[in-house]
């Protein structure tokens, strides 16, 4: 489970009638996003951010806590309670008690909690009558026994208590992100294709009507709109969203060093196809840790045993991304087949995938 910093601001958890709570919440979210771009709005009054990346950046967890605390005080004028633990559930409980758990202490902390923190009265009372007072003693029950007695939601509770799940399904406010988008005017209602001076033309209305007709025929996600976002390689930069869903706010404006430059493949496979790259002696080609190919490629084998000769290749260009969390290592390779087709391949998890065709 990921080590999280939970930020609990008591003053922002109750919604004020004038809507100021949501505005303050959004302002605070912006401020925290500056400190860490992976800050997540969970519920009114509650944010989390992964601690590992920022603590390296700021030079220690204490520095992150100080920076976040100072930021909350500056923006809202309230004192936050900060908690650090593994997983959203424990992080929230820790934040309410203003506790910073050392790595590895989360398990014993969770087991020592009273059952009421799980938020289900019936489970808590029944277990107390059975003499189980802590989350730990509840966790020691067999899952089958819990399933016999309660419904499937209690099983989720039980998995959280055992530390198999990071969060309760009631913890996140699912409407919050939508409300924040509405507040910032990014939502579908205001999200129309604007004409030159911000007005809608007759052509836009006709296109709308046509898209609706196709949707009625083929289903809600049949008509897509494309947009670009930041990224290094074509398959990361492209986004296709169903027509009518809120558009993505991000525009591809930031510089991305190491971007794979134009020309880009005119067909970018949404689901890469597994292929095999062979050398002249028909051995599999592997990519070493330093980003070199074991042999120059001689042939490409598709899963249906189609074999194509490779006449030229460029790359591989290794790409190590998000080494602090996902640790995704890929390398891209352009190959030119004897038939004249140019393909973009990627090596990932010691296999080769076809991701693009320069059609």
């Amino acid at each position, binding site marked *: 489970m990921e080590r999280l910093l939970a930020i609990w601001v008591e003053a922002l958890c109750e919604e004020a009638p004038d809507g100021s709570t949501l505005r303050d919440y959004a302002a605070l979210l912006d401020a925290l996003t500056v400190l860490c771009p992976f800050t997540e709005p969970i519920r009114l009054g509650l944010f989390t951010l992964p601690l590992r990346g920022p603590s390296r950046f700021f030079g220690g967890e204490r520095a992150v806590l100080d920076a976040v605390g100072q930021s909350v005080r500056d923006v809202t004028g309230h004192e936050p309670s900060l908690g650090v633990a593994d997983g959203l559930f424990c992080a929230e409980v820790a934040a309410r008690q203003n506790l910073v758990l050392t790595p590895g202490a989360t398990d014993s902390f969770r087991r020592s909690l009273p059952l009421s923190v799980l938020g289900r009265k019936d489970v808590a009372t029944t277990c107390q009558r059975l003499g189980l007072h802590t989350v730990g003693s509840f966790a020691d029950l067999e899952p089958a026994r819990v399933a016999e007695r309660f419904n499937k939601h209690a099983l989720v509770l039980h998995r959280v208590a055992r530390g198999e799940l990071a969060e309760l399904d009631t913890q996140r406010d699912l409407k919050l992100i939508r409300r924040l988008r509405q507040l910032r005017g990014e939502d579908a209602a205001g999200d129309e*294709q604007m*004409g*030159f001076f911000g007005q809608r*033309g007759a*052509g*836009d209305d*006709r*296109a*709308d*009507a*046509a*898209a609706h*007709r*196709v949707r009625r*025929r*083929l289903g809600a996600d*049949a*008509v*897509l*709109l*494309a*947009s*670009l976002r930041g990224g290094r390689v*074509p398959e990361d*930069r*492209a*986004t*296709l969203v169903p*027509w009518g869903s809120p558009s993505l706010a991000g525009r591809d404006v930031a510089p991305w060093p190491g971007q794979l*430059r*134009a*020309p*880009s*493949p*005119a*067909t*970018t*496979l*949404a689901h890469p196809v597994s292929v095999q790259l062979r050398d002249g002696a028909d051995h599999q080609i592997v990519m070493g840790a330093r980003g070199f190919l074991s042999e120059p490629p001689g042939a490409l084998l598709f899963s249906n045993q189609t074999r194509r000769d490779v006449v*030229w290749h*460029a*790359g591989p260009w290794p790409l190590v991304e998000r080494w602090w969390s996902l640790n995704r290592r890929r390398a891209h390779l*352009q190959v*030119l087949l004897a*038939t*004249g*087709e*140019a393909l973009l391949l990627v090596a990932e998890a010691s296999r080769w995938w076809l991701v*693009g*065709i*320069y*059609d």
Partner: protein
Amino acid sequence: MFAFSSTRPTLPNDLVATLRPVTLAKSRTLPLGEPWSSLVPGAGLRRGSTVVVQAPPGLGGLSLALSLLTESSARGHWAAVVGVDDPGVVAIADLGIDLRRVLFVPRPRGAWAESAADLLDGVDLLIVRPPSRASHGAARRLMDRVRERGTVLIVLAESHAPWPLPADLSFDITQAQWATSSRLDARYLTVRVAGRGEAARAGEHVVVLPNRRGRAEAG
């Protein structure tokens, strides 16, 4: 006013039937960007016409069809792409197409002709890649509808499954050659442009598509 006066002379019925609003030839064509504007007769795509782009698989047919959209898209016309399963969004944006005005229907699941017909009323240019060989009847109905609506239909056909009817304008890729350095640089396409009427003179041209910036240019 004269227009509302009861003494206005009535026009004979046969004359009324022949009257049409005046349209200029220019408003009946959609503009083409470089290099096509100098290679295609009339320097544009006539509304209501059908264009067929034919190429062996993987040799630039899709890029060529998309490059026909660039200038119209920049001027605010809507376009739709039907039957192209996994469009390369970055390449499309690099060509200079405004992504906000392109509708993608990637997998029409056997209803490609119906979806295309649905879209004809809403867009000015329509790229269709039939998933299988198009039947004569479906093609005829679609082309009639296109002529009536004043849309431009761009059909992307492969050599083994050609479009069953003659097109007003056709682009045939006969050869594709990549120029390479330490990466793929540019592709030289030999394209045969042919058509009917004033576009009857067939000519072979070499165009660079895509070039180092992902755009189309004259070879």
